[in-house]
């Protein structure tokens, strides 16, 4: 499939598009009974996932899993969460037909509008669900990690609403890049703790949150922000984010009378993507996860754990990660802080491994162009994270025949500084 032309961008585009189209011609839905084993009792999705953590945490993970089973399935919890999602977050979020974007990209494009959620992204679905669980478990102290600050803001918001304390660990480097969100978290009453080890970004913020949890495991709830980490986190996060896909699936069926041909979502740790994909796994629907290729996978400066990584353990789970020959974790790079993570959730690793979901990657530059496209054509400023999904839709739209559904996981207000810096360079 490689074309050996001297224009590398074009050939990369064609190759990615060709692989995606080949995938779309042969989508194999997962049998519903296979879904029941995803994951097994110890959080294994095939060989991925599991619980690679210090013994000190095992009791806490069992406690959390027991709470998941006994609390999250009760009508009391479900009703309370549904009420919060409806009356506080503003769910259901709409699906918007993007007429002008469809024309420009040459396909029939629908947008799932997670950007319209309170606090501006899908992260609140998970933060509220876990905070509510913490409250019902009698744990009044929340700790959370954050990269871009979106999960930190969502956690601080949930803590304020439910009257819990909240400590957010954030890499010192990210605190500089995301000053506004740091202030927002503090405004919400959260304590933001700078993390000064290693790369001083999200990876170390998670390390520090886990270390702190180990130390205070008896009264503290760790509110993890993506579909990563040891079991039962990937499962809890998926169960709380699947509202995205459940709603979107019903919305497509009721407005179009059919399912989309293909669904796209950006993949950082993978929470918005698994939330969107999960309800479609047994449908004949193409699912495409779009990672951050940063400056290009060949450059080594990227955040594509599936496309540019290998299998290993990071933050308690066996999955695809960025690592060197000795197993040291490599720093990730993406212009979008929310995708700037050297791993991916274990369920995605499984879905990639089995071929049920197709994973690809787009560069910083491609994502930034897609931000402009959506803003100028539809009046919707997407998060740079979400723009990764848009950018790949642009590459394949004209070759598809059915509806394309894209998860707009968040709004781009948080990215104004990055956009301004980019704009200055671009000379618009």
């Amino acid at each position, binding site marked *: 499939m490689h074309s050996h032309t001297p224009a590398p961008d074009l050939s990369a585009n064609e190759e990615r598009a060709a692989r995606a189209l080949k995938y779309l011609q042969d989508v194999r839905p997962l049998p519903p009974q296979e879904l029941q084993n995803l994951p097994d009792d*110890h959080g294994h999705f095939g060989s991925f996932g*599991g*619980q*690679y*953590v*210090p*013994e*000190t945490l*095992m*009791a*806490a993970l069992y406690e959390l899993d027991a709470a998941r089973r006994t609390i999250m399935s009760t009508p009391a919890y479900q009703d309370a969460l549904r009420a919060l999602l409806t009356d506080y977050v503003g769910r259901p979020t709409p699906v918007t037909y993007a007429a002008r974007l469809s024309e420009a990209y040459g396909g029939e494009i629908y947008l799932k509008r997670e950007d319209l959620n309170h606090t501006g992204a899908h992260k609140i679905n998970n933060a509220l669900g876990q905070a509510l669980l913490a409250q019902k478990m009698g744990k009044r102290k929340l700790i959370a990690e954050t990269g871009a600050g979106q999960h930190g803001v969502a956690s601080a918001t949930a803590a304020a609403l439910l009257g819990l304390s909240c400590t957010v660990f954030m890499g010192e480097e990210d605190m500089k890049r995301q000053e506004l969100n740091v202030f927002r978290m503090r405004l919400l009453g959260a304590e933001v703790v700078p993390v000064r*080890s*290693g790369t001083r970004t999200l*990876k170390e913020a998670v*390390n520090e949150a*886990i*270390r702190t949890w*180990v*130390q*205070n*495991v*008896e009264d503290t709830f760790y509110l993890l922000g993506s579909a990563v980490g040891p079991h039962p986190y990937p499962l809890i996060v998926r169960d709380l984010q699947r509202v995205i896909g459940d709603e979107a699936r019903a919305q497509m069926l009721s407005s179009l009378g059919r399912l989309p041909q293909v669904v796209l979502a950006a993949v950082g740790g993978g929470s918005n993507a698994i939330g969107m994909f999960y309800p479609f796994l047994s449908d004949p629907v193409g699912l495409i996860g779009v990672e951050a290729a940063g400056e290009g996978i060949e450059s080594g400066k990227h955040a594509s754990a599936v496309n540019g990584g290998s299998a*290993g*353990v*990071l*933050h*308690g789970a*066996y999955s695809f990660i960025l*690592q060197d*020959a*000795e*197993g*040291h*974790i490599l720093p990730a790079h993406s212009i979008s802080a929310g995708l700037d993570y050297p791993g991916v959730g274990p369920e995605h690793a499984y879905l990639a491994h089995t071929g049920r979901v197709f994973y690809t990657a787009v560069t910083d530059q491609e994502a930034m162009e897609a931000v402009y496209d959506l803003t100028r054509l539809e009046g919707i400023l997407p998060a740079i994270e979400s723009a990764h999904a848009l950018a790949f839709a642009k590459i394949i739209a004209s070759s598809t025949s059915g509806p394309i559904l894209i998860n707009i996981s968040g709004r781009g207000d948080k990215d104004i500084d990055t956009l301004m810096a980019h704009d200055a360079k671009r000379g618009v």
Partner: protein
Amino acid sequence: MNELETTGHRGHEAIIQSFRTRPAVRFIPFIMGGDPTLEATEKHIHALARLGATVIEIGVPYSDPLADGPVIQEAALRALQAGTTVRGLFDLVRRVRAAGVTVPIVFLVYVNTVLRYGIQAFFNEARAAGVEGLMIPDLSWEESAPFREAEEATGIALIPLVTLTSRHRLPYLLKDRTGFVYVVSSLGVTGTREELDKRLVSYLTEVRKNTDLPVAVGFGISQKEHIETLSPHADAVIIGSHLVSHLAAGGSIDDWYKTLFA
């Protein structure tokens, strides 16, 4: 100490033998391999062996040491900056063995280092180099099956770690294990602590009920009185951060030994 049945595990037997023959206050020092150089680590191993360490624990530096506090994180960083590799550490063990050091050596190694190397290959290489045991702080019992197969095949002891939160898990965590039991004496990461957890002494009794292996206790031990409190209840004390920071400040092994044991 309890009399032990030897299981035919080479690493296990060497460790048990060492616990049998060492003096009453047994100590297990932890140093970071390659901090600040492999030559320094080699010198430290000789010094610790001379002082009668029961087992020497060598840290394999890792980029993301989840179970470690700042002192050992920084030591790992220094070692990595000096270019320390797994192979370099295996070679170091070969050198000290060739020089006649017989004290059991245990690697403290994060799970991804072993996975990347290959589980069986890592255990094989440990055996070939003269390492007696491996301690993998982020390997839960739940994920340990392939590692225990390699333990069985090579006789390299996979040292079980138990913590204050493991109480009801002890019966299966400690079933059919080899080497010694590492009792993590405080919640949290490695690092020195002012006070010992009050539950510790009764917990050590509980651990004993579930194993015939020697029981060593560590994590946060930094004072002579900690050692005095624990010695009657444990077969050895493990001292990590206190030694690592002493060395990082330019101190010698002999001086460190005097402050805690003289």
